């Protein structure tokens, strides 16, 4: 019944608007002010004014957003390269901000200033080599600066490092969770082969590879030491995922059949960040940032940045792959015996 009424109301509304329009048009014709111009003077003036109103409202809206949400944005970068990314970002933002503001002002101002009215005549101005050169060359110069600065940062971030000096670890992605693995005592990750995936060996580690035995595996959270390069490798078990660590300005895709890598140096411990953000609950997180299925939105892991000592302590508490699988085997054997 209600829905029937709703439909009826909608239909009546449409009919009413149609009638109103017809009446409006008829009266316009009767009054004889049907302009030969397709746009009437009053419409022109009205819309021209709205252009200026819009301009101010738009900028006011931008300022409002900046003020009310600036404290929600990501806190200061917690990695060495992240700081550089942030300054690059601010530099670019300054340039594009100026362009954004200037062009929008000119656009809406001209749209307001030159609205058609009696006596106004357009200037026939079809072409000016000088002007066109200016707005080819000036953007080109600014872009050159942006490119050079940007690529310098990019090269620094992506240039290879000596894995002996780094903490070598791996993030393994699957629908819908992460597992971290460390190189262990030898700081070398053991080989893997996806065919070996099993309940007992979810990371498909090659048990015949001796480097694998001391690998440490961690679920739920992982720790990294502050001020040391962390070299991360990424693998995926099933579909694409992307390891996104926004506080460190770090991200890399996890691709089945491929091993990708990224390295960075964390500079602020979790404890320090709790103070800096004035938020005792603060934690670093790892998110999935490549659509991967129903629970893509909740595929996360806690990251803890420790002092070097705390990190060592934490790592020592973690079981090695060998211990883990022996414990597993023991349990399974026990289960088997009991049955």
């Amino acid at each position, binding site marked *: 019944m209600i829905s029937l009424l709703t439909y009826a109301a909608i239909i009546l509304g449409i009919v009413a608007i149609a009638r109103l329009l017809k009446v409006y048009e008829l009266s316009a014709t009767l009054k004889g002010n049907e302009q030969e111009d397709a746009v009437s003077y009053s419409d*022109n003036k009205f819309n021209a004014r709205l252009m200026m109103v819009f301009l101010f409202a738009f900028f006011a809206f931008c300022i409002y957003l900046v003020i009310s*949400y600036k404290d*929600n944005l990501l806190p200061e970068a917690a990695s060495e390269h992240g700081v550089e990314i942030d300054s690059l970002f601010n530099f670019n933002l300054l340039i594009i901000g100026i362009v954004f503001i200037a062009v929008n002002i000119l656009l809406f101002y001209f749209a307001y200033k030159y609205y058609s009215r009696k006596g106004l005549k357009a200037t026939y101005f079809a072409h000016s080599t000088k002007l066109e050169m200016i707005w080819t060359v000036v953007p080109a110069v600014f872009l050159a600066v942006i490119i050079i600065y940007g690529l310098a940062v990019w090269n620094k971030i992506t240039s290879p490092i000596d894995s002996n000096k780094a903490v070598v670890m791996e993030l393994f992605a699957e629908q819908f969770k992460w597992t971290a693995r460390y190189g262990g005592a030898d700081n070398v990750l053991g080989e893997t082969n996806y065919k070996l995936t099993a309940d007992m060996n979810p990371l498909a580690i090659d048990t015949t590879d001796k480097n694998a035995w001391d690998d440490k595996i961690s679920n739920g959270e992982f720790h990294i030491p502050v001020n040391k390069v962390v070299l991360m490798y990424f693998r995926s078990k099933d579909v694409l995922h992307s390891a996104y660590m926004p506080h460190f300005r770090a991200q890399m895709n996890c691709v089945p059949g491929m091993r990708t890598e990224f390295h960075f140096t964390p500079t602020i411990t979790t404890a320090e960040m709790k103070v800096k953000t004035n938020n005792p609950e603060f934690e670093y997180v790892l998110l999935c940032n490549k659509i991967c299925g129903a629970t893509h939105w909740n595929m996360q892991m806690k990251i803890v940045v420790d002092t070097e000592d705390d990190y060592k302590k934490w790592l020592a508490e973690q079981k090695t792959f060998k211990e883990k699988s022996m414990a597993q085997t023991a349990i399974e054997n026990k289960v088997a015996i009991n049955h």
Partner: protein
Amino acid sequence: MSSHSNTVDHATHAHDNHDHSHDHHEQSFWSKYIFSTDHKMISKQFLITAIFMGVVAMMLSIFFRLQLAWPGQSFSILEYFLGKKWAPNGVLDSNMYLALVTIHGTIMVFFVLTGGLSGTFSNLLIPLQIGARDMASGFLNMLSFWFFAVSSLIMFYSMFIETGPASAGWTIYPPLSALQEAIPGSGLGMTLWLVSMTLFVAGSLLGSINYIVTVLNLRTKGMTMTRLPLTIWAFFVTAILGVLSFPVLFAAVLLLIFDRSFGTSFYLSDIFISGQAMEQTGGSPVLFQHLFWFLGHPEVYIVLLPALGITSEVISTMSRKPIFGYRAMIGSILAIGFLSFIVWGHHMFITGMNPFLGSVFVFTTLLIAIPSAVKAFNYVTTLWKGNLKLSPAMLFAIGLVSTFVTGGVTGIILADSALDINVHDTYFVVAHFHIVMGASAIFGMFCGVYHWFPRMFGRMMNNKLGYAHFWITFIAVYGVFFPMHFIGLTGVPRRYYSNEAFALFENLQSINILITVFAIIGALAQGLFIFNFFYSMYRGKKSLQNPWESNTLEWTAPVEHLHGNWPGELPTVYRWPYDYSKPGKDVDFVPQTVPLSPGEEEH
């Protein structure tokens, strides 16, 4: 139609009276409205199909925006449209969320802004503005529409199947799109998506080839390439981009079909899913991304260029001024077209691609900013010292320049590989591409509809409703998409069903509600347009032959629907299309068909 359209016996009439001119012969309902080979009718068919698809895609976006603003809340409208399976108790299911996002993006990009925009305006304007009787091949043109229509139907139908439509994002990256075990939408839904897109590509190719041949061969006397309106240049380059890039999408899709159905391993390798190791090894999901974006990036210009062409024409006409820098505009269309083929890697900076290759793509991508900047500045200069008639079409054109700039500048951030590390795939990207591509192209489309409605239907659309439509839409577009930059810079990834899983995002609820409210207002405002469109088609004020006092040829053809466009000879062209307010003339426009007066210089 002529007086004898009232005659009772259509069929015999048309066949017996051979003395009647070709233009006047009677057509049955089917050959006139359904299987028409007339470009003007085909353009209307494209437009109406696109409007339908646009309404569908817009509704989908409102559905998932409800979930983002009020996560986990019950909405009876969701249950009403999606059913108990996908919205149990009115709460959107997380698989369905991804499906809605996917189909929304697919429809908007391909069906509304590629098929709809190019299909409508290339068809309407190419023959009329170059002075041709019709497209080079009316039959292929008709086929192109019917491929489009069938593919639209299949895409639409795919939303109603048991396992749900494709849900891997509009970019359908494998392995997610290849494995039914990974997400239910990758079953039959994905198959239908692939079939639909294959037909879509076929239709788009037929259309594009036709446009190219027509522009090259059927220009009327005097219509040299440098006297073509910028609309035609834009459609022409768009068609070339389509012909070069869509086959690559077709190849990508075909290989995906093989991987899905015949056990090949082009994209699949070393996958363990549902407790089983798959046989396939040696393939690479990254290969798909290369193929996809080799189409995908030109695609954004396929969407954008026609809109820019349309607005160039409208801004010049309604400013009563020549477009500033005509040749520079052509040059930038060509430069953008060329560069758009060598930038695809900017979508893949963090796929593990070689960093040096990444640097090359940074360079090429930022180069594209130069011709784009030239275009923006030329538009603004065209307005300067003009005599602006602010029709609804003109307002949308001005709106386009604003969104093109606002959305374009954030592209500079995304193109910078070092910065992309942190914003890739976040809402910052969603903000960027909706403003620069979504809003701009939609504005271009509205601009075209308001401006050429009289040419299509012989009647005017109502200005007042048009103004209301523009202002509400314009405000809503910025209201929806501008705040998304901030959400992105908070680190929120796109394609997230909910932001509630992270403490990091806990203060974003109010901004998400703000966005959704603007989205609903914007969506409702489209009712004004739809009403205006259909009402004016039958009841609008009769239009004059040349209501905007425009120079181009389409306004010299009679308003009546007439096969062959001009009753007598084709018009001859003597000048470029932008002689507005030329000094020494009594009126502020000089149509292209007016010969140069003695001593007059051609611009």
